């Protein structure tokens, strides 16, 4: 379970998050939506301790991770897997080395043969069998995200965080990534937290939607309820209508 209470974060003089509260239960699939540059990714990075807040608490299984040092956080992070916006694959390594990296770091537990087997299984799960020897530079954007996902699931974490998993991909690849997120959620019974501004994706993968607006969680509801909302701000975001005052050019 992840719980965030009164989270505040500024970069320089710019306040990004101001009093964010949210609670994600175990096994739940939460989607955080909001405008670009609105602090969604910043919020996500707080959940795994990549960023430390200015104020507030982040509880992971009732343990406050705020103020922990890097070594203490390593233990907490074993519960997490994270898929980055740009996949963040290690470009000096092959796909197999990337995916097997978390296991290879725990040498005492796994033999080379075991790692190889689990890498193959993880790549199978993300529909990329046989790509072990390729380098990340040889892969397309969608394939990289899949490899990133394979790397995140190989050590069977309890919680998987997705940072804009479908951004920059065409609708068909996006759809396959959505299906993959659903498959991982159902097969591995993990808690998922997906940050996105892709409404279609939000509707499909989430069973709870949080909307980040004006540095706070503005709305949270199950997808059916959320997408039927009549609140003007929520509606504007769902329908993708720009505020006339904010458009750069006159229509």
């Amino acid at each position, binding site marked *: 379970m992840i719980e965030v209470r009164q989270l505040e974060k500024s970069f320089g003089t710019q306040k990004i998050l101001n009093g964010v509260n949210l609670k994600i239960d175990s096994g739940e699939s939460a989607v955080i939506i909001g405008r670009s540059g609105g602090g969604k990714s910043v919020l996500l990075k707080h959940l795994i301790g990549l960023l430390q807040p200015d104020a507030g608490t982040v509880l992971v299984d009732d343990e406050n991770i705020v103020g922990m040092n890097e070594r203490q956080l390593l233990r907490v*992070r074993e519960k997490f897997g994270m898929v980055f916006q740009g996949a963040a694959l290690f470009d000096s390594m092959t796909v197999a080395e990337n995916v097997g990296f*978390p296991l290879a770091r725990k040498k005492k537990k796994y033999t080379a043969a075991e790692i190889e087997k689990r890498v193959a299984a993880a790549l199978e799960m993300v529909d990329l069998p046989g790509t072990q020897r390729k380098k990340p530079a040889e892969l397309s954007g969608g394939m990289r995200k899949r490899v990133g996902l394979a790397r995140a699931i190989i050590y069977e974490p309890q919680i998987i965080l997705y940072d804009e998993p479908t951004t920059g991909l065409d609708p068909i690849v996006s759809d396959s990534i959505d299906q993959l997120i659903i498959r991982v959620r159902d097969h591995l019974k993990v808690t998922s937290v997906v940050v996105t501004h892709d409404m279609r994706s939000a509707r499909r993968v989430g069973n709870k939607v949080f909307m980040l607006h004006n540095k706070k969680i503005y709305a949270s509801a199950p997808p059916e309820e959320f997408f039927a909302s009549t609140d003007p701000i929520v509606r504007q975001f769902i329908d993708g209508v720009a505020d006339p005052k904010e458009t750069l050019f006159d229509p």
Partner: protein
Amino acid sequence: MARFNVYEWLTGLGQLSLMARDAIVSLLTFRITWRDLLYQIYFIGIKSQSVVIITGAFTGMVLGAQTFFQFHKVMMDTATLAVVSVSMCDELGPVLTALMVAGRVGAAIAAEIGTMRVTEQIDALRTLATHPVDYLVVPRLLAAHIAMPLLTLEAIAIGILSCYLVGVHLLGIDAAFLWQNALKYTHDVDVVIGVIKALIFGGIIAIISCYKGMTCPMGAEGVGRATTEAVVYSSITILISNFFLTLVIGKLVGLL
């Protein structure tokens, strides 16, 4: 503005010290990946061969020639190699090797780690429950500590050898007296001073370059800046610390 710069500078120094402490703790608790360490030794040591050989050889030769030109006036030709040998061991060997390695290896380390930071690979490491200092800094630091003394010894030996060859074959100095004088005035302690300095310079290059990479500002420009700063700060730190090391080690040797 000045106050901001001082504040920034002091913060940087503090962060660098914390990273160095983390690295030392990690070293002492043996959180080392041997494969990475070997690769870094190869990268810092073997790949720097050409640079170090050329530096050592030409420094030895030019220093030998210049010393000879001056000493010849007072008929002290055979002391040439002794001067070159002592200065190569004490100062030029370690300092020039360190400066060349800072340029080649320091830049590469800062660029590699900086790019990893910009492309979120360092964040990815952290999410995979791997401490970036354990994985990135420690192998480089240890490899620099191992490679630098060896490279320095190599530069010293090549410098002395090339000076000998130039002295005997080009400048016509008597080979036996030249060699004998060199042995007479160069002591074991000179070589030890060179090695100690090389060890310290290796640490300086690795820590500063890793730090610059890990704190690299975002974007391509950030990586460029981090790379330049890694080389500049390493070089300046080497030159300044060399002076103090000479004083301190000189005092210590005097006491022994």
